[in-house]
């Protein structure tokens, strides 16, 4: 489990002293955890160490490990981290939302491949009718992974494309319908309303859907990600996050702050541009990634 892996990880740590806590705080800030969260976490760890009267460095390490595990457990359990699939509830509709360029379309392409490889029937809805080349991009993914794509006319109302796609998915009893939407910044009122309308359209035909409404977050995003999570959640109640581009030099630390504040689980991570570069979120390796520089 998480604790055991962290234990093993901390076993390779260099000496733990006051410098250690300073380094820890710096490291957390540099991972985009945010100043407040970083300070809070470091203080808690420091206090905990004092409280437990950790005498030796080894004891100190133990205290920190325990604290991290507690913190992790407090923020939800690992059950939520799995994508939901309800076999009796076909089609399972997944709605992808997020700011411009975060990786929505690519994630849909990758996930379509995963489901297809599991032998499931998948349909894609090209509801980004706004950005030039967006429909062609999703079509190219559909072709690459062998999954049909429902499209509308350019500049058509995205909700109408979603309506058509949902009807077709119902008729064909597809296992999954993955809905791509145009990128939008969360401070744009009319674009957010359009998104709300898309979700409403799905509910009109299938009141219990979407099964998942996923916010796709670029892993290199700084503190603005918190505002993204809040505003998208307000518009279309989110069920989870997808954290992309973790193959770069960013650690996606802001997710820790989002998790602390909103209890939203990360369900998937993007690790590259190829169809296979998608993984389930693993909290332990994520946490270890955050502390990587301290080894």
């Amino acid at each position: 489990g998480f604790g055991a892996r962290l234990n093993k990880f901390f076993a390779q740590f260099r000496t733990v002293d006051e410098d250690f806590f300073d380094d820890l705080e710096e490291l957390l800030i540099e991972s985009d955890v945010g100043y407040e969260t970083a300070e809070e976490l470091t203080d808690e760890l420091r206090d905990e160490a004092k409280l437990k009267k950790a005498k030796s460095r080894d004891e100190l390490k133990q205290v920190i490990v325990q604290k991290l595990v507690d913190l992790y457990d407090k923020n939800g359990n690992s059950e939520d981290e799995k994508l939901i699939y309800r076999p009796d509830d076909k089609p399972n509709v997944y709605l992808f939302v997020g700011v411009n360029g975060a990786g929505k379309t690519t994630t849909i392409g990758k996930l379509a491949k995963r489901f297809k490889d599991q032998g499931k029937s998948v349909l894609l809805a090209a509801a980004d009718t706004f950005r030039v080349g967006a429909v062609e991009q999703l079509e190219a993914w559909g072709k690459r992974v062998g999954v049909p794509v429902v499209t509308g006319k350019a500049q058509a109302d995205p909700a109408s494309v979603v309506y058509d796609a949902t009807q077709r998915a119902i008729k064909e009893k597809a296992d999954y319908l993955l809905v791509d939407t145009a990128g939008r910044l969360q401070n744009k009122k009319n674009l957010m309303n359009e998104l709300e309308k898309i979700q409403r359209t799905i509910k009109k035909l299938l009141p219990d859907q979407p099964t998942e409404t996923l916010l796709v977050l670029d892993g290199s995003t700084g503190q603005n990600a918190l505002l993204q999570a809040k505003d998208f959640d307000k518009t279309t109640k989110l069920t989870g996050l997808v954290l992309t581009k973790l193959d770069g030099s960013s650690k996606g630390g802001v997710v820790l702050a989002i998790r602390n504040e909103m209890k939203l689980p990360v369900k998937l991570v993007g690790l590259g541009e190829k169809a296979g570069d998608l993984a389930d979120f693993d909290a332990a390796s994520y946490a270890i990634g955050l502390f990587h520089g301290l080894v």
Partner: protein
Amino acid sequence: MAFENLSERIQKALKNLTGKGKISEDDINKASREIRLALLEADVNFKVVKDFIKKIKKESLGKEVQESLNPGQQVIKIVNDELTKMMGETAVGLNKSKHIPTVIMMVGLQGTGKTTTVGKLAYHLQKKENARPLLIAGDIYRPAAVDQLKQIGDKLKVPVYSEANEKDVAKIVKDGLAQADKDKNDYVIIDTAGRLEIDEPLMEELERIKKVAQPDNILLVVDAMTGQAATDVAKGFDQRLDITGIVLTKLDGDTRGGAALSIRAVTGKPIIYTGEGEKLSDLENFHPDRMASRILGMGDMLTLIEKA
């Protein structure tokens, strides 16, 4: 996330100081914490913040407080002046070649806005100089990237050079430039695929394109929402390519955009344009002073101080 206004914070921290006179070390230390916090919340890189605070301390210590200001306001003024200076005090334009075409090459991470900016720049140059640009589709990897650029070209009635089955991007660029020579285009704008600065083969590809194209401008396109990694990214691209400038995109959002400061600090290269939306007309010249107050999260207070 309570983004308390920095000027309010500093005022609060220095509330008990009534004396005019000189700014003391104690004042500065109190203010420093607030400045540090504000900059980190705006996503300025941690190390850049450290250096910046050092500079502010040196600048402020022992400085006379101006007649019309209180000590808090004086510190804010110093912070704002210093930040504006770091952002580059005046607006900088594109490098122009002596003979046509002037070549512009776009580089950057995935999804930052390179292709969109190619279109915006072409539109901007059309409007401003009646230019006749040629666009080169140098992204052969992303699905439908060429389609995207072609549709932008169609909208603008600007030619787009692409080759369907060529795997060597440097060759496409070379052929595109030959086309531009023949057609006497005054600008060539090269779109490239998004890539990580740590992706060795793809960074090498950019070096090859640079060698072939001898661009007058290499513009690093950076998403204004980028967090702490902005310094690594900018350094990575600059060290390999010696970029000439920066385009900061998606500033129409509500990010504070501290990445702008980080990038300036590590590359010293000017921010030339900002992206303010998805439309082809949403490109602006960079305004250092506006960016400074945006990062600091300061509104009316600043105008007040500027008048002092």
